[in-house]
């Protein structure tokens, strides 16, 4: 449905060239919910706006539902108003001089798919129904709360039934609780409509919970594409491991094909093929994969340590433990009896370690 090939964009700024996007490739299938995830400044917005046609890339090709909307080599550029898209902006961008109905009706009255008058009303009502704003249609949009404006923006993006929906950090202006609620609802709505979605965020929790597919971007490039589960459990690079979820990192030295020496002892794990023995590597393991035991001695898959801090998070507890000169984060579910200053053993389960060169 969305096909991006070799997309690149360079900004010439006063302080020099910024390569915002460096030749990325991406495919989003029909009805798929694809999330672009990455730290701020990595080029997500630029990519999304290129798909919308609001930004003109320097090179590459973009294909929406079989239509080439941008092609550098063939000099094709379809303006945004001729692309079959809906978009939700970070600032919502609801027009303050209109009321809710007028905003949502705009794509049908002034937009790409103008509808006959008698058709506008039911379709706008339908869209408002979808976002549960049916009662507010006569309100000026400036009277609405942030969350409601967000819904108006979503209704406007969906009312013309576009085949592609683009969203740029739509939840980032909402407060934490509302964000979570909207997240669930967004997922429900896009799923029920079945629209192909490209969604941009820097929040990994949002990405993992929303996406059918997550693309991790860094510095203008896509580092990894996969299902949320893949990206979380098998990050392919150090950056992805660092950026998605929490991770403990330990320096190590390769000893054999599936063995690495580290301050916390010999670790058994598959070593990437390009790492010969003696090479310095980074070992990584998630805090929730570690656990604590009251036996504080070293052993097979366990080292003795001292608890440095304890953070109670409600559903889990996060410990910081110093063992063998390394600070490790350990997440235990629920509350726990261990206390700051106590000696405890850190247990490493087999098969959870990952190695990055």
């Amino acid at each position, binding site marked *: 449905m969305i096909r991006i090939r070799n997309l690149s964009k360079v900004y010439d700024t006063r302080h020099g060239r910024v390569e915002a996007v460096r030749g990325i490739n991406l495919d989003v299938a029909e009805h798929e919910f694809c999330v672009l995830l990455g730290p701020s400044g990595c080029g997500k917005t630029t990519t999304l706006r290129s798909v919308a046609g609001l930004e003109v890339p320097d090179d590459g090709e973009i294909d929406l539902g079989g239509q080439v909307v941008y092609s550098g080599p063939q000099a094709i550029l379809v303006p945004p108003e001729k692309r079959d898209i809906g978009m939700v*902006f970070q600032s919502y961008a609801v027009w303050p001089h209109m009321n809710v109905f007028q905003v949502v009706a705009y794509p049908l009255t002034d937009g790409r798919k103008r509808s006959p008058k008698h058709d506008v009303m039911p379709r706008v009502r339908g869209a408002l129904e979808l976002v549960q704003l049916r009662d507010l249609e006569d309100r000026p949009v400036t009277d609405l709360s942030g969350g409601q404006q967000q819904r108006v923006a979503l209704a406007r993006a969906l009312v013309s039934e576009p085949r592609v929906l683009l969203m740029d950090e739509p939840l980032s202006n909402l407060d934490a609780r509302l964000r979570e609620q909207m997240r669930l609802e967004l997922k429900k709505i896009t799923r029920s409509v079945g629209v192909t979605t490209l969604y941009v965020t820097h929040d990994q929790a949002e990405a993992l919970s929303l996406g059918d597919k997550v693309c991790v971007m860094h510095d203008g490039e896509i580092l990894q594409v996969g299902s949320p589960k893949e990206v979380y459990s098998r990050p392919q690079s150090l950056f992805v491991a660092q950026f998605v979820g929490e991770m403990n990192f330990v320096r190590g030295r390769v000893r054999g094909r599936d063995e690495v020496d580290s301050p916390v002892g010999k670790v058994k794990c598959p070593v990437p093929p390009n790492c010969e023995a003696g090479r310095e590597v980074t070992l990584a393991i998630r805090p929730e994969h570690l656990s604590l035991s009251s036996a504080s001695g070293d052993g097979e898959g366990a080292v003795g340590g001292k608890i440095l801090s304890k953070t109670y998070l409600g559903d889990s507890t996060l410990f910081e433990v110093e063992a063998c000169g390394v600070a490790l984060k350990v997440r235990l579910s629920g509350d726990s009896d261990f206390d700051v200053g106590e000696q405890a053993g850190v247990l490493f389960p087999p098969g959870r370690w990952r190695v990055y060169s």
Partner: protein
Amino acid sequence: MSAREALSGATLRRAIAGAGFTRRVTQEITRHGFGYAASGVVGILVGAPAIAVLLMSLRVGIPGRGGPLTFENYYRAYTDPIVLQVLLNTFLFAIGTVLVTLLFTLPLVWLFNRSDLPGKRAIFVFLIAGFLVPVFLRAIGWILIFSPEVGLLNTLARSLFGVERPIFSIYNLPGMAFVQGLSLVPASFFMLSAAFRAMDPALEEASYVSGASRLRTIRRINIPVSWPAIAAVMVYMLMLAVSLFEVPAIVGWPARIFVLSSLIYFAVTPNVGLPKYGIGGAYGLLMMVLGLVLAFLYFRVIRETKRYAVVTGRGYRPKMLPLGRWRYPALAFVAVYLTLDFVLPLAALLWVSLLPHAQAFSAAALSKLTLVNYRQIPELIGLRPFVNTTILVLLAPTLSMILSIFVSWVVVRQRFRFRGVLDGLAFLPHAVPHILFAVALAYLALLFREVLPIYGSVFIIVLAHTIAYLAYGSRTMNGVMIQIHHELEESGRVCGSSKLRVLWRIVIPLMAGAVCNAWLWIGLLSYREVTMALVLRGPENVVLSTLIWQLWFAGLAPEVGALGVVLIAVVVPIAWGARGLFASIAHGYSGGTDER
């Protein structure tokens, strides 16, 4: 490969490269059609007069009478012994004007924005009214009071104390600078207030929080931080002062004190003989260069001020310093200014308008008070000046605003390659003295009188004003447009509307208030403008301001008084209704003023 094949290969490649180039050019033009359209229109409107100045300085004789290009005009203009004196006069007049302006403006701005001065609202209304009274009317008022022969003050002194020689005269450079400087106070007040308001109060508060005293904060923070804004206003006023014409003509002409602008004016509108456009152009080019240098300086300084601007723009009131017993001297200062700039000249106008002929205040004069001057206005001047003025004040702001909106939409919103150039072109009317624009337009209209017969009609004044106020309009619209989040517009595009439709349905409605304000403002400027209308005048296109001017130079003081009072009486209620507009200018939501 044979030589011929290699040759044809090269030709082919060149052809392909050529086609690629053509395609890129077509693509560029279709993609940025609005940008090129706007640049074209503004380029012609602004560029043509600028080039015309150059052209006419290189030609002798009547416009359109061909002939070779020559430097004769420059030779004649700059070997004239008067020229050194005129340059010196211009310089002294400009510096003196700016000094007088600052002397009054700085305390006023500070008192108004940072202290608990009582009666701010009333003072504000006076400032507005002062701004709207045409400068030449104020100058006339001053002459009525301070002229050595007929001045009310001097005749009064003569009759009271029996002094023989006049005790006071304004027919000299300091007098001119004083009158002109006073007249620029409201404009610079509005500009500087805007800059003051835009300054981040947190800078000041951080100093207090760090434990600095009030005086130390003023010395270490307030003054350094506001210095760029003051410097910017200074440069701007200097730019105006070298180009202003009204006071130098009204006060300077009788005393034979010329500055560049009046020299140009009298070169192109001599009382006897043919207009010497060539000489005017030769002086005009110097003036234009001067204006451009100052404009460049202004931009440099303005960039400095932006560094201190508030980013958030939340409605914020800085703390007002209690004046305590200092409030009486402060009020006295304000009163002196208002009396000098507003009350006295207006009172003088009103006084002469009620008498059969100008004379000092006395019991005898009181008994002769009459309304005859007012009653005879209709038969004296007829309907035409009113009709022309109405056409002018409706059409000029409309055209100017349409152009301004379009230009700043391209400059701010379209990723147009040459938007900087376009913005600069639109600013040019600020830098190039208005009198030059008018002279150049007159010249062009004479040159092209067959194609576009607008010479001597009111439409050439409309055109001049449209161009002149484009600078103000586009600057204001830039400021407003920048505040409209770009996503508001982009969301319209994504919904499937074309650029123009988005401009019409979303951008313009969002700016409606600002657009109306700017329209009204330009209308008011147009109403009180006299310089350009004067240069472009003919028998058919008299407007109220030029009419008063002509009556004054014909020596009809009572009629001038009556018409002047009418002119002011019309405009003051409008100004009162539009107080909000002025407040918005003073608070910096608008692009400043355009005092000319």
